[in-house]
């Protein structure tokens, strides 16, 4: 990225659920006040029918695209997909992206101040679910005066929120694009998350989640991130990216420095992550993903979750994604078909593992642009 950015965005905040009208969570717990950080791009049409909610993945934030200042060098996390002339074209659509509940990028989470104590919540923060995240996003849309979304779009944990949206508020969702996601978290995915959480909780600086005054559990969080990164790549992408390449040495060094390129990469990713992310948020968000099972949203199993829906779907999986393999998207597609819903499904050939949905991919770009274009035109035609 160079030059001057023309798509200025700003992080905005919406606060609601002030006591005594706290938000009632799926767990039965209460939380309030709740602040949600969000950004918007594009212009909401006078008919209010061009809004697309983009939902971020596990550790993302509201900064989906654009720049905070004219010389801002840091792009949004989905800059390749969102913006003027992109697949999610902000010259046509009004794009909203909010930081999830339980996050640490401006929305209320375990690092926020607990009004009862004046100190960060830590583990006093209630467990939140994917459904709770969606409830909060719905409150934001009510605040923005948007009663129907043209589309909800998201990958991975964002895709889970897309599905929860369709199950919770079917009448509000004209179309949905769940990417590289699953209708329920598998034992394998839960297992990786549990190892990541254990790494954080085993860090002596974690202190039962009460670390905000002193040193942070950076080592544990970095290891947690390293585990995550392994699941986001694939055997083939690791072979191509790193192979057995050594870092700046001709021969094995015979000690425990990061000798292999892949070790160095993981350490770098881990260390970079702790600068921007809160360890407790990581615990809460991974737990929310683990709890996700669309079967819980209605009687009648997976198909029951979409009863009464008239949403159109574009489901996309990637061949080398072993975190949320294609079969899990197929199970979703099957449930949608059983409800007679309009669904398109494509399994994109890619060697880049789960991460593929965030990488430049001509095919994904074309699929999303064409699907959204169709939905937009059908909506305009009054279908």
């Amino acid at each position: 990225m160079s030059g001057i950015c023309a798509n200025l965005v700003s992080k905005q905040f919406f606060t609601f659920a002030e006591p005594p009208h706290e938000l009632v969570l799926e767990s039965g717990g209460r939380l309030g006040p709740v602040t949600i950080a969000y950004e918007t791009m594009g212009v909401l049409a006078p008919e209010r029918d061009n809004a697309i909610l983009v939902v971020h993945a596990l550790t993302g934030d509201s900064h989906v695209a654009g720049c905070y200042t004219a010389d801002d060098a840091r792009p949004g996390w989905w800059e390749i997909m969102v913006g003027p002339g992109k697949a999610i074209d902000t010259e046509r659509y009004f794009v909203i992206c909010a930081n999830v509940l339980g996050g640490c990028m401006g929305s209320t989470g375990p690092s926020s101040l607990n009004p009862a104590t004046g100190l960060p919540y830590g583990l006093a923060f209630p467990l939140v679910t994917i459904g709770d995240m969606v409830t909060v996003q719905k409150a934001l849309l009510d605040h923005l005066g948007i009663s129907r979304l043209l589309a909800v779009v998201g990958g991975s944990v964002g895709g889970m929120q897309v599905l929860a949206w369709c199950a919770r508020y079917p009448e509000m969702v004209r179309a949905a694009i769940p990417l590289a996601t699953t209708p329920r978290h598998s034992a394998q995915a839960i297992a990786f998350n549990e190892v990541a959480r254990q790494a954080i909780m085993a860090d002596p600086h974690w202190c039962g989640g009460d670390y905000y005054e002193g040193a942070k559990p950076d080592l544990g969080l970095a290891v947690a991130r390293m585990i995550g990164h392994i699941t986001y790549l694939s055997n083939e992408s690791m072979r191509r990216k790193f192979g057995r390449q050594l870092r700046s040495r001709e021969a094995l060094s015979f000690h425990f420095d990061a000798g292999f390129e892949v070790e160095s990469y993981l350490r770098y990713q881990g260390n970079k992550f702790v600068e921007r992310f809160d360890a407790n948020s990581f615990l809460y968000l991974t737990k929310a993903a683990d709890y996700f099972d669309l079967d819980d949203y209605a009687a009648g199993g997976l198909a029951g979750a979409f009863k009464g829906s008239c949403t159109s779907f574009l489901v996309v999986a990637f061949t080398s994604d072993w975190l949320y393999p294609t079969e899990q998207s197929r199970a979703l597609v099957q449930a949608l078909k059983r409800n007679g819903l309009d669904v398109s499904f494509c399994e994109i050939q890619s060697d880049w593992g789960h991460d593929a949905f965030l990488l430049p991919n001509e095919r994904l770009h074309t699929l999303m642009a064409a699907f959204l274009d169709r939905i937009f035109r059908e909506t305009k035609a009054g279908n």
Partner: protein
Amino acid sequence: MRFDLQIIASWIEPGSRVLDLGCGEGELLQYLKEQKGVKATGIEKHEAEVAACIGKGLSVLQGDFNLEVADYPPDSFDYIIISQTLQQVYEPVALINTLLAVGKKVIVSFPNFSYWRIRLQLLFAGYAPRSTELPYEWYDTPNIRVITLRDFRNFAREKEIAILKEVAINTHRQQQTGNIVRFLPNLRATYGIFLIGSGARHEEV
């Protein structure tokens, strides 16, 4: 559009729900959607073709239609089209039964193996026939079922499937022109196209 697809399109009622199995790049579905206002759905195996369909604004699923089609509730479609593919299906009886449950009517087309040129090849040259419709060697052909128009009629009678409409045509692979064969079709037609329904619906003929 291919000649056989033109005939199939002419059989579809406007505004109906259509499922095309092995829809390729969606040429027929796009035509039906634009010209007849149908609710069009396709199932296609290959990623590039699925992407081409979705790129045209069609609703298409990537997968093996033999498996995918069973997920739909009964009578989900007014027409299910299986064009030039039946000869490649491993379990045609099970598939056709499923199609007749999921769709009200099914349109089946296939190359006619009793076309006179094919007969002559076998008779005089003595090798497994190759033609523009069936251009493969015995070892690489995807066409594992040898069907003639007469075979299909016998099959329908035996399985109590109602043939609601039937046309024999003489055209060649991918050609946009052709003609309908009325005299000695089993000998002279390169393709057969049948509109079928379950036996109970025979009275609709």
